[in-house]
């Protein structure tokens, strides 16, 4: 098979690490070659962050380039728009509709663009959009946005619900397990 590419994008501090851990864990149990890549350090301080997950028979490059992503999972709307050009033809964006203003918007130097989902669709991009923050809060914590989005992404993978749940059990502390499982299901059904 050709290498599959998933990008997880968002704002530093939103918890993309857990999402990629979950995916990576599941993919190696299926015998795929897997690479997961992210940048640590300065950009994490509230900046735009991206994690690359690639899998297939043999994966070489640790990063995903423009025009290559099968999926872009975005924790924040503006970030989905920022990275859209990384999507391959026929790829899909799964995005939280939550908006977090970047500093240039806060200071008034720039405006948060309007109608972003419509503009993505104008490019012919398939977009799944919903408020993942509300789902996460319904599950018990605003911090579960990452698992809500993974739950939605899971609809497009062949793994069984049991396999996803097993991966969640291995990836989160026991005391947050039920919360995360609930968040996953809410996302999967969104």
């Amino acid at each position, binding site marked *: 098979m050709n290498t599959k590419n998933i990008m997880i994008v968002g704002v530093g501090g939103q918890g993309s690490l857990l999402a990629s851990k979950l995916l990576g864990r599941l993919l190696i149990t299926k015998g795929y070659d*897997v690479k997961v890549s992210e940048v640590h*350090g300065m950009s994490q301080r509230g900046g735009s962050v991206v994690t690359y997950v690639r899998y297939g028979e043999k994966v070489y490059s640790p990063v995903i380039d423009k025009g290559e992503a099968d999926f872009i999972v975005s924790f924040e709307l503006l970030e989905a728009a920022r990275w859209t050009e990384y999507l391959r033809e026929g*790829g899909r964006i799964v995005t939280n509709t939550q908006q977090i203003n970047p500093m240039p918007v806060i200071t*008034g130097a720039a405006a948060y663009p309007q109608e972003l989902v419509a503009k993505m669709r104008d490019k012919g991009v398939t977009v799944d959009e919903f408020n993942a923050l509300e789902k996460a809060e319904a599950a018990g914590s605003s911090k579960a946005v990452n698992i809500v989005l993974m739950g939605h992404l899971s609809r497009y993978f062949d793994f069984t619900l049991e396999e996803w749940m097993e991966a969640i059990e291995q990836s989160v502390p026991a005391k947050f397990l039920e919360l995360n499982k609930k968040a996953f299901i809410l996302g999967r059904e969104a």
Partner: protein
Amino acid sequence: MKQLMLGNAAVARGLYEAGCAYVSSYPGTPSTEITETVAKYQEIIAEWAPNEKVAMEAAFGACLAGRRSFCGMKHVGLNVAADPLFTIGYTGVNAGMIIAVADDAGMHSSQNEQDSRHYARASKIPMLEPSDSAEALAFTKLAYELSEQFDTPFIMKMCTRIAHSQSLVETGERVEVQKTYEKNPGKYIMMPGNARKRHPVVEERTRALVQWAETAEINRIEAGSDHSRGIITSSTSYQYVKEVCGDKYPVLKLGMIWPMPEKKIIDFAASVDELVVVEELDSFIEAHCLSLGLKVTGKSLFPCIGEFSQNLVAEKLGMPVPQGEGAVDAAIPARPPVMCAGCPHRGLFYTLAKNKITALGDIGCYTLGAVPPLGALDTTICMGASVSGIHGFTKAQGGAADNRTVAVIGDSTFMHSGVTGLINAVYNESASTIIIVDNSITGMTGHQQNPTTGYNLKGDPCAKIDLETLCRAVGVKRVRVVDPYNLKETEDAIKEELAAPETSVIISRRPCALLKYVKHKKPVVVESDKCRSCRLCMKVGCPAIFMKDGKACIDNTLCTGCGVCTQLCRFDALHEGKED
């Protein structure tokens, strides 16, 4: 069983399996996780040193004593440690010693884009360069074998994409290595008479390493079907080449980047029509090929600036580049990194900016004080440069004539190399005002302990260097502590110390708001009817404050209740949240 492992964690695993017994490092992105991961192995003594020079010398001492040792750093850290580096190349080792250096092409988290491969050639110390986590683990173990076989430290050269990518590895068991120390002045006392005898040994060792490189498995040729072109590459560039070309062109992948083989490269060049070198940053492999008299295409085709990617390599080699759906038709505002909500540095930088003070900055989270709307810094060069720089700056301006310049340096950076600058300021009778922003942790690299925090790398309580005592001990008479959450106290202190005709130190002290033990207060409350939309509260650049329908609003998920913004409002619209 195979597992996903970060490149840096794979180096750490290699250290463990190879019987490394002592590690000393200074944190620096993208190298930090090697040492953080090592700290979890009980068999290994692992420490943060105050700086990279100390770390390298401590690691050398441990290898001299007979145990395999390691020190890790980012590229600019190797500049700090360059002094011992060039001489331990002469002495060689007793037990094996590895130095890891992590470059940051693209400058994700760095102030320059230096290519550390030059250090291998300059110091005559061999360098291995892994291209994924499996190699990071295997090369680390191999480097110890070679270090002892050839009697030299080895450099393990990482880069952001290898250090911070996870790929599959298989782990093994640990071996223990113990050698005895024997006094050997001719080998270890590098006074001129001895060093003159060691230099020829180094040159002979390099010739032997070149011979080893000719047949080494880690310098491998991968066959290709099309001999019109042959590619020499290494590290992450190898991955991009294989991603784009597959098995089309023959590839010579170099695992040891210095010294490089000669005959192997000449023979490879003879087997293809066009020789191409694909390497990030400077011409290094290409320069070697040129020195062998080969015709080669390298930097005439590929940039010497920034990171590569598969699309860049595809475009340059004339291979197909994927076309996606294209960019969204909208102006997407940038999202630069910002100081966190509740960051103790904010109040200080607001005060500096408000008073239009020239501030020589340093390396850490507080470098973010330079970005709008604060724009409170004038320089960022390297660790410690603020304290040394302000001395020259004030001297050149005629002492404290303008009373408008301060140095700003973090607690960890001050321990790293700020204290020597402070000694210089006292000794040479400077009127400098130095502000130590003490957030009780090494922040930017992700919360590492340092000599001022009272905890060591393993998380155990330990000796704590007291900054006030230290500053007084080197002769600073004016040392005071302020709380940067209190804007008036901070402003008064800065004005008074700037007016003082001698060296003074202000310690701006508040723990990082992200530390787990720091209790946040209730979010700030806005009385909307009192808000006059003056936007003064926006001047602190806090991500938790935004304007909605012309009124200031607080993002309750971000606000830590630090209260800095409440001190700015002239209309009493912002209040500290009531505690339960």
